[in-house]
C-alpha cells in the first residue's frame, strides 16, 4: 500500500518531489517509475533488501547518477533527466541537498576544520573567517569542538561521520540525504551518530535516511518507504507498516531483519 504523506501529515509543503524516475545500468534496470514526495520538516526512512535500488534513488536525487528519465525537484529546483540542463541548475539542486555517505568520504589531506570550511568558501562564497566560525559552531554542536586541527584519519569512525554531517550542514541544505550512515560503524559508535541525527530531526531538518536501523525508522521517522526490485512497494506510517505490512515482500523483509 502506498499512502501519500499529505493525507497523514496535511498542511506541510512538499520539498522533494521525484516523479517517474527510471535508471538502468546497461541491460540491468535498477529503478523503474519511482515516485516519492517528502514533506518539509519530516524524516523519511527508506528500507529494503540489498540491491533494491535505495542508494541509486538517493544518488539520482543529487545527480551523482544521471537518471534515464524522470524529474527531480528539491526546494523548487527542478531537473528533468531527459532535457539538457545547465551547470548552474545542477549546482543549485546539489546545494539544496546535503549528502552523507556510508564511508564518510571526507578529504583526508585537509584538517577537520578545513573539511567543513572549504566547501562553504567555494560553494557559497563565504569568507574564510565566516566559514571557519560556522564550521566551529557545527563541530561544537556535533561534540567535536577539540578536533578542528586534527586530520580525519586520526578520528574514530563515529567522529568522522559526524564531521561529514557537519560538512554537509554547513552549506545550509534544505534536505539531508543519508545513505546507511551507520552501517560502517560498530554498534556503540553508530549510536553517537544516530543521536546527532535525532537531534537534527528534532530541530526540524527534512531528512531522507536509508537505513537498516529499524528502531530509528520506527521511533524517529514520520514516513517509511519500502523498496524492492527497483520500485517502491510500500509507503506510509512507519509504525503501521512495521506492525502490519501489506506487501508480501515487506513481510518477508521485516521478518528477516527483525529476527537478526
Amino acid at each position: 500500500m502506498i499512502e501519500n504523506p499529505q493525507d497523514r501529515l496535511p498542511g506541510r509543503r512538499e520539498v522533494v518531489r521525484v516523479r517517474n524516475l527510471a535508471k538502468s545500468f546497461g541491460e540491468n534496470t535498477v529503478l523503474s517509475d519511482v515516485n516519492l514526495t517528502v514533506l518539509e520538516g519530516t524524516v523519511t526512512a527508506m528500507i529494503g533488501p540489498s540491491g533494491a535500488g535505495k542508494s541509486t534513488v538517493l544518488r539520482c536525487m543529487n545527480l551523482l547518477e544521471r537518471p534515464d528519465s524522470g524529474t527531480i525537484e528539491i526546494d523548487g529546483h527542478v531537473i528533468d533527466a531527459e532535457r539538457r540542463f545547465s551547470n548552474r541548475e545542477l549546482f543549485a539542486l546539489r546545494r539544496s541537498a546535503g549528502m552523507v555517505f556510508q564511508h564518510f568520504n571526507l578529504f583526508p589531506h585537509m584538517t577537520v576544520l578545513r573539511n567543513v570550511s572549504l566547501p562553504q568558501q567555494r560553494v557559497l562564497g563565504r569568507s574564510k573567517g565566516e566559514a571557519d566560525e560556522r564550521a566551529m559552531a557545527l563541530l561544537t554542536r556535533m561534540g567535536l569542538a577539540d578536533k578542528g586541527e586534527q586530520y580525519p584519519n586520526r578520528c574514530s569512525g563515529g567522529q568522522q561521520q559526524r564531521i561529514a554531517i557537519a560538512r554537509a550542514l554547513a552549506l545550509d541544505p534544505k534536505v539531508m540525504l543519508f545513505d546507511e550512515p551507520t552501517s560502517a560503524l560498530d554498534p556503540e559508535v553508530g549510536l553517537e551518530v544516530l543521536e546527532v541525527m535525532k537531534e537534527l530531526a528534532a530541530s526540524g531538518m527534512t531528512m531522507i535516511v536509508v537505513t537498516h536501523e529499524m528502531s530509528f525508522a520506527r521511533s524517529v521517522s514520520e514516513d517509511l518507504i519500502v523498496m524492492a526490485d527497483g520500485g517502491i512497494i510500500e509507503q506510509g506510517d512507519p509504525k503501521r507498516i512495521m506492525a502490519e505490512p501489506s506487501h508480501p515482500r515487506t513481510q518477508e523483509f521485516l521478518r528477516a531483519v527483525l529476527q537478526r
Partner: protein
Amino acid sequence: MTFFTDAAAFLPVLLNGLQVSAILTLLSLLFGLPLAGVLAFGIMSKNRVARLIAIAIVEVGRGAPALVLLQLMYFGLPDVGITLSALASATVALTWTTAAYCAEYLRGGLSAVPAGEIEGSQALGMTTADTLRYIIIPQGWRIALPSLMGFAVILFQATSLAYTVTVQEMMSQAYSLGASTFKYLTVFVLAGLLYAVISIPATWLSVLLEKRMARHL
C-alpha cells in the same frame, strides 16, 4: 697512493662536468614536469583528439631510448633546418623523456584518488574545476611524488648519455681525462663515486618524503 693524488688532480675537472650534468637534469625537470602535467590531463581527456596526441607523445617518449632521442635532436634535426647547440638538443631530448615518464606517474597518482572523495566533493556542489584543484591534484601529485623523485635520480644518471652529443658533462670530462692520462680506472671509479654521492642521498630523501607525505592519507 697514486690513486688519491690522481683523484685530487681529476676532481676539479670532473666537478665542472658534474655541474653541467646537474644543470641538464634541472632544465629537463623544469620543462619536463609541467609538460608532464599537461600530458597527464591530455591522456585522461574526454576529447579524442587531445587524448590521441597526448598518448602519441608519451608513447614515443617512453618507447624510444633516451640515447635515440638525443641523437635525433642533435644529428637529425639539422636535416630539417633546425640546428640546436649541444646542450639545447640534449635538454629537448631529455625533456621529452621526462615529460613522457612523469605524465604516466602523474596520471597514475591522479586516478588513485578514491572515487568516494570525488563524489563527496560533487555532492557538496563543488565545481569540476574546484574538485580538481582542491581534492584531486593535491592528493594525486603526492601519490606520484616518490615515483617522480625516483625518476629524477635516473634522469641525473641518464645525462651521462649526453656525452654522445658533445655536451661537456661529467662523462665526457672523464673520457677526455682518461684519454690524455690513460688512468681510466681512477677516472671512472671517481666519476662513479660522484654519481653515487648525489644519487644515493637523493633516493634516501625520496623515501623520507614519501613517509612524510603519507602521514594523513
